[in-house]
């Protein structure tokens, strides 16, 4: 270990990203929102629901509030964006959690003030990359995947009725794919005043790809197919388009949003 003063503990890794959203083929407006903030290395996908204008409003408020809250936290006295050698000591997960909670409150308040927005809510999947660590905060059935070589792994656990049914042994994962309750989520941001947020964190490896998406992608493609499309894409910038196109080819049942983030050595 070098003890040279001022030397950064972790090497600065380059993070590149690309994102795309699409209305799909069955819906007439897009209620998904996404955020790419390369300065904070913050990435968010939100899939809104409820009412005529409600869904789109909820997801937009979510991504804006989360960005605003994290920027405020960074500029505040207790900046959570500090390097921590151990995952469990990092401050970012709690900062992310409280940003999502604030977004929940903001959406709920907005819905209380405008009856047309009543009952709106949104899913949130968010990612912050800091040094070689990646942190997620998650509510609902939008997903985060880690793609590392031969492996594709869903990092977030869906807060959906079918997932609860699978865990209770009521249905098999195969049955879940065709369940009519596939779109029912068990938690959402802004539908109630408070929400329980799941946070996760992983150590990144060079060339890891993190993929955030709404269920408009995950319900149309198998994990394996997502993996193949990502690996076949000539560049990172191409990936979201290829994934969205394939989801549309399969029917495009819902709005489709994809962000890919790659950590480069």
């Amino acid at each position, binding site marked *: 270990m070098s003890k040279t003063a001022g030397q950064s503990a972790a090497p600065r890794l380059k993070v590149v990203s690309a994102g795309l959203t699409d209305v799909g083929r069955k819906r007439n407006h897009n209620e998904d929102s996404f955020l790419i903030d390369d300065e904070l290395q913050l990435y968010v996908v939100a899939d809104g629901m409820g009412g005529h204008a409600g869904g789109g409003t909820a997801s937009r408020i979510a991504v804006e509030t989360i960005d605003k809250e994290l920027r405020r936290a960074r500029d505040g006295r207790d900046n959570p964006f500090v390097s921590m050698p151990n995952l469990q000591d990092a401050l970012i997960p709690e900062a992310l959690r409280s940003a999502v909670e604030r977004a929940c409150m903001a959406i709920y308040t907005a819905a209380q003030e405008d009856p047309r927005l009543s009952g709106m809510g949104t899913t949130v999947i968010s990612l912050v990359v800091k040094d070689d660590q990646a942190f997620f905060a998650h509510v609902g059935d939008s997903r985060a995947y880690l793609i590392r070589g031969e492996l594709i*792994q869903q990092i977030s656990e869906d807060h959906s009725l079918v997932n609860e049914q699978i865990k209770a042994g009521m249905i098999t994962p195969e049955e879940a794919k065709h369940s009519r309750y596939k779109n029912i989520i068990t938690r959402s941001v802004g539908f109630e005043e408070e929400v329980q947020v799941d946070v996760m964190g992983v150590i990144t490896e060079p060339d890891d790809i993190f993929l955030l998406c709404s269920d408009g992608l995950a319900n149309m493609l198998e994990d394996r197919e997502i993996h193949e499309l990502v690996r076949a894409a000539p560049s990172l910038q191409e990936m979201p388009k290829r994934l969205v196109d394939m989801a549309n080819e399969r029917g495009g049942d819902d709005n489709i949003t994809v962000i890919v983030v790659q950590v480069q050595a």
Partner: protein
Amino acid sequence: MANKTYTLMVVSDHNAPVKRYHIQKSFLVQLGVGVALLAGLALGATIHYFHVAQDAAENRILREENLTLRGQLKSVRERIEHIGTTLDRVERFDQKLRAVTLLSDPQRNLAMGPTETEPGTTAPATDTQFTQLHASEAPTALMGRLDRLSAEATRQEQSLQELQAYFQDQKSLLASTPSLWPARGWVTSDFGQRLDPYTADRVTHAGLDIAAPHGKEVYAPSDGTVLFAGLEGGYGNVIVIDHGYGIKTRYGHLSKMLVKAGDKVKRGARIAAVGNTGRSTGPHLHYEVRVNGIPQNPRKFILEE
């Protein structure tokens, strides 16, 4: 002739008068018969005495023999007991193997329990040689027990042959089964319903909590691929391993993780260290086994004692 009389004269040498005794013949006959009877009686008694004396000697030998036999019976009983416990162990192992294969056989549920009472509850043989055998331990009862044991052994043999045939086809399934304890320690909270240590609510505990010192090794209980190694909310540092066949294991509250997502691990490989990260009241390993997404009791798969 009937009343012949004999006279017995006693003549003294001196001047004393001669004494005469008149004895009737019938009296003499009676006397003779009486003497003969007495002599016969005495002979009979003597013969009887010798018989009894012989019996007594024989009895001593029999007692000794009886003692030896009793000892042998006891050791036979002990051996049967031993076989019984061995069979019980085989049965438990068999059940575990079946759990491992996820083979369900409703007939197995009819399997009889222990073939006898616990060893401690059998009346200990007292030292006196005259103690009667306990009714249930009579040799006839032993025969019944032997019959049952032999039936049980036959059934076990069939069952194990069935399993062996199964495993010959499914070697990789066996390698996937989380059959080892992932860490050595005390199980402080079992699978199933429990009170939440934080909120005291009744909740289902989806795994085992194994209390062990901070830094104690955590081993992979079978071959697999690491799906996740990172922070996961209340479980702190978590590793998830996919063993194939729909079997996944999860390890929570780790202090250190020695593998990363994508790594292949072998059974027995060190993967992490026990810790207290996340929502935890002390250093312990939270260990879960999920089959097709459904949490199962990890003990069902552990073949180690």
